[in-house]
């Protein structure tokens, strides 16, 4: 059976060049970069090279990059570290209703401890109202946390405009850019971001490595206490092989992004057009244009996303419903909920996220194989067959598609 991987927002394979670059740092150049001797010296240079590679991709200085273990750690560090460091200023956070759980659940944790959080709503395309955002800022507001690109729908927020608002009101701006870095240009200077989080495994580096950009002069309490690594910002022995991998992945992304994003977007648009032509009663979730080039989230009315994913998997096609972090506990997506997608439609949502390895043959295969699966599942769906489509509100919503 052919394996077709359309879940690159969940994770990506480590690129072969990245793996090759990492391998010497397991056994041959094994030193601890904090050591003074030759073994440490062998790797400390590689560490700093990687730091520069990451910085270049997002237009930062190497000194502003701190390596962390994953995107979730970076987000926790940004939010918790800010609120602790700025505890004299206030206890109010502004974020959006569609953030990744790494941000949302951290904010909920803080709410239970006396902080107040404003969750900005989004419109039906998943877009923010910047007037509303600016109006939410109070003298108590210490942090604005807005993601660059939504992991489920791919919707891109106008980060530069949000950064300008944050700068105008002198509110610190944290951006979870885990889904954006490597897929679209990210410039922390142009966007006026103070804290920005990157995850390695979303762009061809291994799992278990990430980075946080901390604008020079930003006071941030560490999350992990211990040794003096990373200028006292993050304790723990450096994961040298993965840091080397992240560095190279960032450099390659910078070189190839312009070309590859055009190629991936063409495939994504092909998939989108093919599915909309072949399957009636489907709905695009996410912004029609302001969207990651690789992401397509659609609801197939009348069926459950869970069933479709399993049937696609039986054919070797890997897709996702919502974020992989909640798969296995398949709650209706909070992102689609915030976009006021009707609940049975939200349950039928499926995310296809493409990568550089996908081919037009693979996409053609999906366009061929998926419509009959959807029809088969609809034929078995009690809702589809209930015959009382005028009787309930959700059926009415579905009918209008």
């Amino acid at each position, binding site marked *: 059976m052919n394996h077709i991987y359309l879940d690159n927002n969940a994770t990506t394979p480590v690129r072969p060049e990245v793996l090759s670059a990492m391998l010497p740092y397991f056994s041959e150049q094994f030193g601890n970069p904090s050591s003074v001797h030759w073994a440490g010296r062998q790797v400390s240079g590689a560490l700093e090279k990687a730091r520069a590679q990451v910085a270049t991709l997002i237009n930062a200085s190497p000194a502003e990059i701190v390596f962390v273990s994953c995107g979730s750690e970076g987000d926790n560090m940004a939010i918790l570290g800010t609120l602790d460091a700025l505890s004299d200023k206030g206890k109010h956070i502004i974020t959006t209703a569609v953030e990744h759980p790494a941000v949302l659940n951290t904010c909920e944790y803080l709410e239970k401890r006396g902080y107040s959080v404003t969750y900005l709503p989004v419109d039906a395309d998943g877009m923010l109202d910047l007037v509303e955002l600016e109006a939410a800022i109070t003298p108590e507001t210490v942090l604005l946390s807005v993601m660059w690109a939504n992991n489920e729908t791919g919707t891109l927020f106008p980060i530069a405009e949000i950064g300008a608002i944050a700068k105008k009101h002198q509110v610190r701006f944290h951006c979870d850019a885990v889904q954006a870095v490597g897929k679209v240009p990210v410039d922390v200077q142009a966007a006026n971001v103070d804290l920005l989080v990157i995850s390695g495994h979303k762009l061809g580096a291994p799992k278990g490595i990430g980075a946080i950009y901390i604008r020079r002069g930003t006071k941030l309490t560490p999350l992990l206490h211990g040794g003096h690594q990373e200028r006292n910002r993050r304790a723990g022995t450096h994961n040298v092989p993965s840091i080397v991998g992240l560095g190279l992945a960032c450099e390659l992304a910078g070189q190839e992004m312009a070309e590859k994003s055009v190629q991936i977007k063409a495939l994504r648009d092909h998939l989108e057009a093919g599915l909309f032509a072949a399957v009636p009663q489907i709905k695009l979730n996410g912004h029609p244009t302001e969207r990651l080039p690789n992401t397509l989230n659609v609801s197939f009315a009348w069926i459950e996303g869970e*069933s479709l994913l399993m049937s696609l998997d039986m054919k070797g096609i890997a897709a996702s419903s919502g974020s992989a972090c909640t798969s296995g506990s398949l709650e209706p997506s909070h992102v689609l909920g915030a976009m006021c997608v009707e609940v049975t439609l939200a349950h039928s949502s499926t995310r296809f996220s493409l990568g550089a390895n996908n081919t037009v043959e693979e996409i053609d295969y999906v366009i061929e194989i998926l419509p009959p699966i959807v029809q088969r599942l609809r034929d*078995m769906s009690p809702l589809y067959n209930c015959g009382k489509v005028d009787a309930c509100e959700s059926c009415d919503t579905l009918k209008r598609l």
Partner: protein
Amino acid sequence: MGARLFAPLYGFIMTQKKKRIVVAMSGGVDSSTTAALLKEQGHEVIGITMQIWDYSRFTAPDGQLFGSCCSLDDVYDARRVAEAIGIPFYVVNFEADFQSQVIDPFCNEYFAGRTPNPCVLCNQKLKFERLLQRAHELEADALATGHYARIVAGAAGYELRKGLDPAKDQSYFLFTLSQQQLGSVLFPLGAMTKEEVRAHAARFALPVAEKSESQDICFVPDGDYVRFLEEERGSGHKDGAILHVSGKEVGRHRGTYRYTIGQRRGLGIAWPHPLYVVRIDAERHEVIVGEEEFLQVSSLLLRNLCWTVPAPVAPLRANCRIRYRHHEAPALLTPNADGSLLVTFDQPQTGVTPGQAAVFYDDDRVLGGGWIQ
């Protein structure tokens, strides 16, 4: 060995070509062995675990382990078993349905003075309804579970029969299965004893072969259902009188939901003879106690009946089981015009508990059942 054990009962499987079979995997010995045996017979087996409950809601006191059938750890166990025997594995999330179809009725029943049976409901509403639907969606030919019961293709349709191991027979929990469901379901362990299943599990070197039996209700892993009910619905202002059958108040209670029919311990009453809970009146907040003879009941009324045979229109003699571990007793079943059914026992029975299921048998065959009012 597997083939010898299966052949007489599962001729269906053995004579047909390779089938696609979904196995409901809990992570326990029985369902794991079911999956391994079907795989060994050459079928295309897909394992599915129903995630029905958020176990992060519980923390066992002093870190004790939960010995129940479907804990979160068991999802990991099921995944490990699926990996070990080399079958695809999925987790499906039925938490919302489990809450509305099993937990909510469970709580409602207790607070209405009855003692519910959530396992039957879970089988009826989730395992053989929603999970079976999932199996059909995957174009599976059948859904197999590790229940100790048998399905026999008879002249007049499928017959649901007891498992051959009398100590393990679970047919009581399956009386709601319709002919259509029986036609899509397999119980490969129905002709085996628990020892044989454990032997198979050891032969397959399943990572769960040594696991102990689950005892409690899966969503009350520590067995403290009173605490569970109070967490779900709140506690307090539910006090009332404990009355002797003579009408005399003999004590106070802190909520009728804390009691079940036949309960003797924990009543806190000084009385010359042992007293048992014989009736619970939730509306009046009363628990009625009496001597052992007051537990004797000669007839009972059932509603919401399910039949694996055509529903009787005339009185019918059958053996009737009134709870899982009850030895069924001969009785006359008399259908009423309103769809309910009167069971009249030849000999009075003790411990008839509203909220439990009564299941009718003809020898080892399940005829149907209903809910005790």
